């Protein structure tokens, strides 16, 4: 596609086409949009791209994205030090923060165990988690990995590993989605919902 254009336009289309979800047609459309916008707007975009690579790094404690040595959550003294919520990706931290239910700290693993893609326990930030638990301040580890096969297997691995450390290990509940129909629930979800049923107190 980009071969039909020359020089800078071809380079731009080729670079845009490497972004996730951007195919050759979309790359071409974005490239021509950029050509037709003000130089100021383009400079702002270019600056944002350069700044994000220069400034953003990973928090030394939890592995979340941060702009300094520690992320905003790890640096916040008002948060509860006794609970750590373990998630796969920085995006999951944002999702949990939106609920405003949790006031503890986080730990980002950087993925889930996936042997077919060659990702084993040693490729995740599990050792860093063990180091954080060694101080003895933490009393509960909440495992919030994705509720799919890889996430569940990672949770099973972590619970086995942490079982002997004297901290409570909990897993987020899974069950019926709010706003859904019971008859469309699959066997695994419905089975888990039954296991995790709660008593309704009058």
């Amino acid at each position, binding site marked *: 596609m980009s071969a039909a254009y020359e020089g800078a336009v071809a380079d731009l289309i080729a670079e845009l086409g490497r972004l996730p*979800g951007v195919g050759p047609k979309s790359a071409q459309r974005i490239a021509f949009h950029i050509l037709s916008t003000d130089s100021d707007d383009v400079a702002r975009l270019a600056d944002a791209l350069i700044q994000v690579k220069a400034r953003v790094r990973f928090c030394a404690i939890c592995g979340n994205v941060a702009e300094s040595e520690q992320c905003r959550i790890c640096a916040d003294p008002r948060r509860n030090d006794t609970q750590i919520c373990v998630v796969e990706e920085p995006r999951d931290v944002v999702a949990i923060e939106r609920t405003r239910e949790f006031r503890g700290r986080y730990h980002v693993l950087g993925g889930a*165990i996936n*042997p*077919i*893609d*060659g990702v*084993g326990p040693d490729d995740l930030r599990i050792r860093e988690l063990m180091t954080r638990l060694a101080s003895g301040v933490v009393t509960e580890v909440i495992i919030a990995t994705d*509720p*799919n*096969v890889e996430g*569940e*297997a990672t949770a*099973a*691995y972590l619970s*086995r*590993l942490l079982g002997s450390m004297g901290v409570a290990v909990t897993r987020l509940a899974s069950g019926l*989605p709010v*706003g*859904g129909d019971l008859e*469309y*629930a*699959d*066997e*695994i*979800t419905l*089975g*888990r919902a039954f296991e995790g049923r709660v008593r309704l107190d009058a």
Partner: protein
Amino acid sequence: MSRTYRDEAVVLRTHDLGEADRIVTLLTRGSGQVRAVAKGVRRTSSKFGARLEPFGVVDVQLHLGRSLDVVTQADTLAPHGRSIMADYSLFTTATAMVETAARLTEVEREPATQQYLLLAGALRALAERAHAATLVLDSYLLRALAVAGWAPSFAECARCSRPGPHRAFSAPMGGAVCGGCRPPGAAAPAEETFALLGALLAGDWAVADRSDDRHRRESSGLVAVYLQWHLERQLRSLRHVDRTGAARVDRTLDPAVAIIGRTA
């Protein structure tokens, strides 16, 4: 001709696609390996829910697409994923099985009914904990290779067919080798290990279940070498198989590496 078809399938693996879709690799009963798009499956409100997760046996309806088919309906036949994902050893074992199945049925849409039945049976045995996980894995690997045309020989010599029992094992030669055919550097497993390997290949569980740990470890190493020699590449998930059982977490030596190290 109808553009939709229906089949039974085992979900081998999934890849995320775009915002909320996934490509699922299925091993179908009638038409071999098929890659299909499951639209919106990552949304919590998806009608598919957990049905298209790896290791599940499903009844699917697919719509023929230009490059990839599209999953239009899915119903669970056996939710093996549930017990497998709750146990780390079972998960890593099942992953090695589906990766092998994916490699052995690589040509898409080439019917592989026997491979399908073998994998579905092995996953059921694993999920129901019918036998030790490493035995189920090794038995599955040997039988899957046999179905694919790489049947090993554990009684007579793989090269000259002289009746056994023999003392040496060589993966390149195809199994047990007699004193005359034995290449330099062939492994020399115990007699009980040969008996165990033969039982695993034949599906003789009475013999296999009675075997002890030492011979199980040795046969796992030989199976790993045999498999990777004939597939002509490394199986990525085999290195991560957790053979420690449920109680312990310490790392044991990878049997494949141990054996290759000795013969090299």
